[in-house]
C-alpha cells in the first residue's frame, strides 16, 4: 500500500516537474531552450551515482553479514543505476550537440569516465550470470560492485581535476549550494526535478528489490526440489540391485 502511494506521488511529481521545466521556466539567455535538457540530465546523473553507491554499500554489507537481502539491494541498485547513467549520457548528448556543437568528445574526462562507469556496471550485471550459487554470486558481485564504485568520485571530480569540455558544478559544491551560479527559478526547477526523480527512483528500487527476493526464492525452491529428487533417485538406485538379486534367486 505504502509503495503504491509512493509510486503515485512520484508519477505526479515527475509530471508536474516536467511541465514546469518544459513550459513554465524561462529559457536561458545564452543556451536557449536546450538548457531545459539539464533538468532531466542532472537528476539522471545524480541517481546513477546514488544507485551505484547503494550497490557498493550493499556489497560491503553482504560481505560482512552474508545476508542475501543485501545482495537483492545491490542488484536493484546496479540495474537502475545502469538505466539512469544511460539516461544521463543520452541527455548530455542531446544538450551537447546544440550547445557545444558535438554529441560526444572522447577527450573529455567527465564523458569518458561516465561511459566507463556505465560499462563497469553493465559488466557487473553480466558477471552475476556466471554462477547459479546465490552466495557465491553475491560475494563475487559484491567485490565487483565495490571496485567499480571507485569510478564514482573520479566521474564527479573529473571536472575539477582535469580540463575538458564539461563545465564545473553549478550547485554541486558546498559554496555553490548557498550561491548557485544560476538564477533562482532555474535552481528551483532543477531541485524539484531532482526530488521528483528521486521519489521515482525509490519506488523503482523497492519494486526491483522485491523482484530480486522472489527470483531468489524461486531459485532456492528449485534447488531444494532438485536436491530431494536426486536423493530419491540415489535411494531408488541403491535399492534396485538388491531387488534384482532377490528376483534372480
Amino acid at each position, binding site marked *: 500500500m505504502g509503495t503504491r502511494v509512493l509510486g503515485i506521488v512520484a508519477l505526479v511529481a515527475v509530471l508536474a516537474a*516536467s511541465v514546469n521545466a518544459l513550459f513554465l521556466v524561462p529559457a536561458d539567455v545564452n543556451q536557449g531552450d536546450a538548457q531545459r535538457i539539464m533538468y532531466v540530465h542532472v537528476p539522471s546523473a545524480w541517481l546513477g551515482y546514488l544507485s551505484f553507491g547503494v550497490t557498493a554499500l550493499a556489497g560491503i554489507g553482504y560481505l560482512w553479514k552474508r545476508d542475501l537481502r543485501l545482495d537483492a539491494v545491490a542488484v536493484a541498485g546496479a540495474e537502475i543505476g545502469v538505466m539512469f547513467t*544511460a539516461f544521463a549520457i*543520452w*541527455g548530455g548528448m542531446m544538450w551537447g550537440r546544440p550547445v557545444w556543437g558535438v554529441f560526444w568528445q572522447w577527450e573529455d574526462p567527465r564523458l569518458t569516465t561516465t561511459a566507463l562507469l556505465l560499462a563497469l556496471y553493465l559488466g557487473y550485471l553480466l558477471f552475476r550470470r556466471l554462477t547459479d550459487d546465490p552466495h557465491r554470486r553475491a560475494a563475487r558481485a559484491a567485490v565487483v560492485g565495490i571496485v567499480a564504485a571507485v569510478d564514482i568520485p573520479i566521474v564527479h571530480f573529473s571536472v575539477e581535476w582535469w580540463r575538458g569540455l564539461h563545465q564545473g558544478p553549478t550547485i554541486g559544491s558546498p559554496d555553490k549550494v548557498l550561491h548557485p551560479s544560476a538564477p533562482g527559478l532555474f535552481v528551483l526547477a532543477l531541485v524539484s526535478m531532482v526530488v521528483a526523480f528521486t521519489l521515482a527512483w525509490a519506488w523503482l528500487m523497492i519494486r526491483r528489490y522485491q523482484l530480486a527476493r*522472489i527470483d531468489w526464492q*524461486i*531459485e532456492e525452491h528449485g534447488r531444494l526440489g532438485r536436491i530431494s529428487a536426486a536423493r530419491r533417485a540415489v535411494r531408488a538406485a541403491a535399492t534396485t540391485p538388491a531387488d534384482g538379486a532377490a528376483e534372480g534367486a
Partner: protein
Amino acid sequence: MQDLGFIVAAYGVILGGMALYAVLLLRRLSAARRASLQVRRDAEAGLPSPPPEAEA
C-alpha cells in the same frame, strides 16, 4: 521553442524510458509472483521442481 528536436529526444527517451522500465518491472514482478506461487503449490503437492531453464 529552439532545438525542439533535441529537447523532445532527451525528454522522450528519459521519461519514456523510465515509464517503460516501470511497466516492464511490474510485469516481471507479477510473473515472478505467479511462478513463486506455482513452485510453492508444487512443493506442497510433492511434485518435482522444474529445472532452472523452465523457471526462466
